């Protein structure tokens, strides 16, 4: 089995996709780091203070103004989100904890939170979508399947190689973010406290279960969840790669689902059964943060289970189809 996984890793690496993805990551991270840097400068100009308490207080007032002045232009979902955010910020302020201690770790944290539902899954999709379909388009599937190795083993070796690649992507992503953003924001801040355990109840923030964790612990958990999300997206792309022999078609389907997910997230609060769609559940990290879920009643455990079920279903579909199918 190890030799088969080695083969698959060799193919993935020699296709140079991981390099290209790393390159794209580096460019994007630099871009966002610079944008963040500009943002900090702007805040400084606007509020004229370096003290985070003043800034945070100003932000709360700004948001409150927006809520009362914007009136009907703000959708219910967005209003709810904003109200929760104000309460959170207030909580941070009341307990004298800086929600965004300047430094690379904080940037890594917010960046992970923002990329878990689209950017990271996209990278994973690029790797996973052609794992099987490219063997069909190259014609090498005929060689692969006429070896004295059972088909499920071939597919499993590909899947294991995918898991390795996903781990590598998440690792490179966090690592690169830390390295690049650190150049502007400094590399310290691992021990800064982060509040976890917020729960929401409509527009009310429930702070009964909150606790403090050092930022490194938070990032570790967030990375774990991001890895899990990537694994599910990877599994589904992998399944599509088995079902659809054209890589482009497989990628198209996955891309459409992912983007539909981000759109649905802002729309579906009234359509309740949408919560069983995998793409609506991708933003696991928003639960860590304590933001309001897209649909009332969704929790971390719920989303985790929905993703798990989708992942398992995709995994078995891929294996059943691959082992039974006639190859022409």
């Amino acid at each position, binding site marked *: 089995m190890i030799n088969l996984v080695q083969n698959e890793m060799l193919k993935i690496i020699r296709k140079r996709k991981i390099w290209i993805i790393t390159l794209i990551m580096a460019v994007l991270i630099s871009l966002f780091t610079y944008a963040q840097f500009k943002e900090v400068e702007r805040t400084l100009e606007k509020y004229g203070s370096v003290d985070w308490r003043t800034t945070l207080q100003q932000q709360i007032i700004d948001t409150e103004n927006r809520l009362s002045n914007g009136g009907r232009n703000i959708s219910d979902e967005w209003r709810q989100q904003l109200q929760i955010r104000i309460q959170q910020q207030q909580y941070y302020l009341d307990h004298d904890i800086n929600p965004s201690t300047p430094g690379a770790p904080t940037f890594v944290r917010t960046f992970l939170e923002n990329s878990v539902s689209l950017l990271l899954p996209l990278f994973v999709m690029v790797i996973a979508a052609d794992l099987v379909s490219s063997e069909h388009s190259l014609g090498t599937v005929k*060689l692969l399947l006429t070896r*004295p190795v059972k088909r499920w083993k071939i597919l499993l070796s590909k899947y294991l190689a995918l898991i390795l690649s996903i781990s590598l992507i998440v690792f490179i992503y966090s690592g690169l973010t830390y390295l690049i953003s650190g150049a502007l924001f400094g590399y310290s801040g691992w021990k800064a406290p982060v509040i976890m355990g917020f729960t929401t109840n409509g527009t009310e923030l429930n702070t009964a279960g909150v606790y403090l964790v050092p930022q490194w612990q938070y990032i570790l958990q967030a990375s774990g969840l991001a890895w899990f999300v990537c694994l599910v997206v990877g599994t589904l792309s992998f399944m599509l790669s088995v079902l659809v022999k054209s890589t482009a078609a497989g990628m198209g389907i996955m891309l459409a689902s992912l983007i539909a997910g981000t759109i649905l997230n802002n729309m579906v609060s009234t359509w309740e059964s949408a919560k069983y769609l995998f793409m609506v559940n991708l933003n696991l990290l928003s639960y860590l943060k304590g933001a309001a879920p897209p649909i009332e009643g969704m929790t971390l455990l719920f989303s985790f289970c929905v993703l798990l079920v989708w992942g398992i279903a995709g995994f078995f579909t891929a294996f059943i189809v691959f082992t039974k199918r006639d190859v022409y």
Partner: protein
Amino acid sequence: MMSEITLKVKGLRKVIGKKEIIKGIDFELKKGEVFGFLGPNGSGKTTTIRMIVGLIRPTSGMIEICGHDVNKAFTKAMAQLGCIVENPELYPYLSGWENLKLFASMLDGVKDERIIEVVELVGLSARIHDRVKTYSLGMRQRLGIAQALLGRPKVLILDEPTNGLDPSGIREMREFIRFLAEKEGLSVFVSSHLLSEIQLMCDRVAIISKGQVLRVETVETFLAQQELLYWRLSPLAEGKHVLSTETQIIEEIDEWLVTPFHEEDVGKWNRKLVEAGVNVKEMNRKIPTLEDIFLELTGGESID
């Protein structure tokens, strides 16, 4: 001797939807022979081959490679088999060597020495570390064969091995296939839609049309049964009369008479003609092409 049969196909059928693509195929391959599988495009050659190598599951029937059933003991059967199905497709972004290493790792006990050995056998040593995408079609074909030979298979299956090769490449391939069968004792199964190919390199041939094997015969038998003798006689009418008492006149083409060729009788027929005062101007023995045979067997359905 049972042990000499390396590939056995019995009652092989494949139904897709409601259409019966393969309608019961039987044949056997013996050790050390080159077996031709001849049929026009769309006759079911490739489907049959894909069933033999386990890519397609047969609807019914049995395929045994060295006594192992392909559908029941897949890995054991495949360990005895090397194949190229259609084009020799390998990973273009890897070097020839990496490709071979990759496939070798999927077989038991194939070491680097064996890889070097097959690379030398197919004459690719000079370019083996170059990427496959820089290879010519002939080189890819040879790399494909190297890959198929890695595990010292007993049966080698080549689907249209000379497709796309230039004339010298075709001759080389033909000699190589003969070498593998005669010197290495492999059973080689070669499919082709080209009669000339099969005629030149095969010991036995199966003719397939519309999913059925019409006949399995040695190439010599096929040819011998169909050998013809062309006569040019004068006067024609008299000659025709004499010949028709001795044998069957198959055809009359201009001033030529066509009869079967029977080596032991031809002298006698000639003497009869001379005795009757017929002047034998020319006698031509003609070996038919498999094309002629095919046309006769299928009743006019042409190849291609």
